[in-house]
């Protein structure tokens, strides 16, 4: 009788929701993971996978050059993740922890720039810094009488710069909320105890920020390893092949060599699982990082004094170089059909033709509507689902709770092409009529982007002490009430940042969409690829990039208001 009543006590709505979320995530992840293993270990024929084989691994890894590819990838990933982290964390600190001027402007700027697809940003940088046609190089050569172009984007440094300067919004969106809830009283206590600035940073501030920092670095590193836009546009002409170049080669051959791509992806999978393992070890003592406790927290901005305007100005200069140059180039180019270096003389021939072409492109309006709808739905589902999964992973006393974290993070290692193909196959054979509808795209997007949601939610939750939930429980609140009235308001900044980030990823998604878009479902990702590869001018592609930024400006403003309304005062 006692055992039955213990079990009966556990069957609550809250626990059922937890179990349902766990099962949903397991299903979403296991479909592409199973496909990955199946495709990697079976013979690839035009008719589909055949007999068991390890030939795909021999094909993928059976040449010494793979070491060079991996070496290049590591340098590229380390370099770009470090650069993005430094830039993003610096800006997050200025915006969230100081009284520097223009903070709201910096916040909006940091997020909207991310809306531009990686392909376009890389292309923009070639128009800025190519030694042959880069307009910035031409200007500097003209001004300073240089015989050679001072910058060359077609180098490893160029690749690191382009990805790092495009990825910093991720670091900003992860570190920003962490800085915001950093309780200044802990730092004050350290100063009172005699700590100098170095001791303060190394023994108080950085350790408190460790979960957010590690989440950020981990995501940035993996993004670097799996990045293919910059290697495609810059790495290939520069003859700097990376790991994903091989994966892309394999998936774009006719017919695609999915077996080779899958076996190469195993390396990414191992990297992901290792990083989760080390992350969990490094943040094992969760309570040590909680900065939001039962006593509340005080987030007081640091007064910069005479450094206020120099730091504000320096940050503006940083934005001008990082974002201003490529975004201006993109914007400028959108008014010309062909490549056009910026000049006063050229202004006379600027025109709106590209925008006219874009807005009358046959499927543009449908694609915009579908992409925005999918973005909103996908971001909302990922945020809520990962919030629950992160809670299970961090708060449950299960021995292998880190596996849930690893499971939710795994899709990041699987090429989007394979996710798209596996989702397509699964829902063709299952009696769930989502094929050729918007819902199959939604399933793929949630699968693809839940790892990002997991890192946002995980880092944010680590900063909230368990005692708040314990107090709520003691006061009689059930699980759902605790989620809704305690955790959700405290996590609002993190969840909103997560929502925005995943929204943009959904709107930009391309590789999986190619498999899943149907006759009546179109998305902006496939439209941009069509314009890039199959028609339309350079200017039209740039116009699409500009157009993708505009709705995000509005959404960022709305979400900022929402965040201010929800945030506890």
């Amino acid at each position, binding site marked *: 009788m006692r055992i039955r009543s213990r079990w009966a006590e556990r069957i609550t709505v809250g626990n059922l929701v937890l179990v349902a979320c766990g099962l949903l995530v397991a299903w979403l992840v296991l479909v592409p993971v199973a496909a990955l293993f199946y495709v990697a270990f079976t013979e690839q024929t*035009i*008719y*589909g996978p055949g007999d068991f084989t390890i030939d795909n691994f021999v094909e993928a890894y059976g040449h010494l050059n793979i070491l*060079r590819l991996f070496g290049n990838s590591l340098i590229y990933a380390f370099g770009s993740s470090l650069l993005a982290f430094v830039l993003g964390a610096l800006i997050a600190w200025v915006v969230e922890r100081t009284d520097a001027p223009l903070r709201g402007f910096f916040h909006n700027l940091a997020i909207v720039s991310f809306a531009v697809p990686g392909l376009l940003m890389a292309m923009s940088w*070639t128009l800025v810094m190519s030694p*042959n*046609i880069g307009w910035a190089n031409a200007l500097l050569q003209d001004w300073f009488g240089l015989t050679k172009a001072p910058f060359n984007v077609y180098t490893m440094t160029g690749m690191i710069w382009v990805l790092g300067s495009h990825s910093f919004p991720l670091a900003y969106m992860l570190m920003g909320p962490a800085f915001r809830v950093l309780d200044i009283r802990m730092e004050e206590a350290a100063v009172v105890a005699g700590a100098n600035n170095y001791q303060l940073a190394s023994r108080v501030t950085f350790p408190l920020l460790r979960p957010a920092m590690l989440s950020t670095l981990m995501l940035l590193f993996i993004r670097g390893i799996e990045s293919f836009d910059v290697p*495609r546009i810059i790495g*290939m*002409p520069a*003859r*700097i*092949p990376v790991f994903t170049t091989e994966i892309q*080669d394999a*998936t*774009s*051959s*006719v*017919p*695609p*060599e*999915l077996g080779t791509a899958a076996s190469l992806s195993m390396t990414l999978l191992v990297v992901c699982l290792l990083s989760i393992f080390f992350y969990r070890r490094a943040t094992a003592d969760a309570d040590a990082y909680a900065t939001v406790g039962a006593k509340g927290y005080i987030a007081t901005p640091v007064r910069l004094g005479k450094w206020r305007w120099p730091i504000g100005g320096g940050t503006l200069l940083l934005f001008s170089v990082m974002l201003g140059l490529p975004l201006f180039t993109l914007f400028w180019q959108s008014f*010309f*059909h*062909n*490549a*056009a270096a910026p000049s006063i003389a050229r202004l006379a*021939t*600027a*025109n709106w*033709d*590209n925008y006219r*072409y874009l807005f009358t*492109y*046959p*499927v543009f309006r449908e694609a915009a509507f579908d992409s925005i709808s999918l973005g909103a739905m996908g971001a909302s589902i990922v945020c809520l689902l990962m919030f629950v999964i992160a809670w299970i992973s961090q708060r449950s006393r299960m021995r292998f709770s880190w596996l849930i974290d690893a499971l939710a993070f795994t899709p990041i290692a699987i090429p989007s092409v394979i996710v798209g*193909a596996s989702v*397509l*196959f699964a829902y*063709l*054979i299952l009696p769930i009529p989502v*094929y*050729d509808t918007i819902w199959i795209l939604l399933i793929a997007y949630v699968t693809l982007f839940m790892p990002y949601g997991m890192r946002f939610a995980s880092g944010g939750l680590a900063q909230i002490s368990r005692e708040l939930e314990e107090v709520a429980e003691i006061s009689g609140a059930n699980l759902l009430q605790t989620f809704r009235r305690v955790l959700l308001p405290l996590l609002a900044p993190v969840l909103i940042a997560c929502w925005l980030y995943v929204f943009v990823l959904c709107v930009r998604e391309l590789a999986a969409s*190619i*498999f899943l878009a*149907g*006759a*009546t479902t179109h998305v902006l990702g*496939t439209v941009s*690829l*069509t*314009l*890039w*590869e*199959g*028609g339309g*001018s*350079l*200017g*039209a592609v740039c116009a699409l990039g500009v157009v993708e930024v505009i709705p995000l400006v509005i959404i960022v403003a709305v979400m900022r208001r929402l965040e201010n309304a929800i945030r506890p005062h």
Partner: protein
Amino acid sequence: MPFAALASSHPSPAGQGSMRGLLGLTASVLVALACTPALAADHSWMSDKALVDAAKKEGTVAIWSSINEDEQNPQIAAFTDATGIKVDYIRGADAPLMSRMAIEKRAGKESWDDFQIQAVHSVPKEWLMQFTPSEAAALLPQARDPDKRYYGTYLVFHTPAYNTTKVKKEDLPKSYEDFAKHPEWKGHIALDYTDRDWYAGFIQGMGEAKGGKIMAEIVDKLEPTLYKGHLALARALGSGEYWLNLNNYLNLVLNVKLAKDPVDWWILEPVVTSMGEIGINAKAPHPNAAKLLANFLISGEAQQMRTKWGRIPSRPDIESNPPGILKAFEGKKTITPHLSPADDQKWQKEFNKVFKAQG
């Protein structure tokens, strides 16, 4: 003359005020109407009444194609206007469309009727229906599969191209061997890294020993850059990023040229050709509508429309845009390497080795 129609379909860098824009639009409409008289009058592709009736009964047809919507949709609209048959169109690149096809087959589903990419010949024969459309008789011989499983909807000539502000016409090589005589072009020449079919055709045309030697010398002396995307490569040529393309698709170079970029092309033998191909699913859900649509897409009507975007017709009775393209290749040694999937992979590896794709 379709040239004007093509020029007005792409944004002009010269800019258009509202009055000029209106005049330009009116001119485009008038020229387009002048170029497509057959649309209003004579649908020769509908000559088989029994097929048309059967197709209309089916009422709908699904086509998967690599042609962008801007080009394909007007043709689809013309077909639907003439027949009343609804067309479901899915656009994608060759590789993902073939994967999608294989996945559907594996799952026992057949949702596509017509398939239009440049590699229909790579699809397993048994997946494609044998059919003889009435318009096939008017196609060039190389545009008809002897096994009657696919037909060419447009031709692709692989030619070198150059930026006219960087390279003088008199300096253009008269043969591939001559490329290596221009050390000043080192670092300024590029080609697409998927040009394995061009490379295969070149080696087949020149012979393995001679062809291999020529290409090795070009790579050694000029270090051609590898690029991804033929259209992006043509644009990069137009912008001056590169001075020459060792190889590109002529219709894309024309597309960029007609948009006023300073690019041009010339012919070197052997000329490798490929084509846009259309095939029908052997288990098409709507076989009659599929046959009718395929017949339309190889017809003079559809091919005339396609010239608006610089595509080269696969039939001699339709003039190219600009005119004279087919004539320019008359008498030239041409090779069409239809690579099987196994050959495709083999030649990609060869290409990577020769052009040092890994650095």
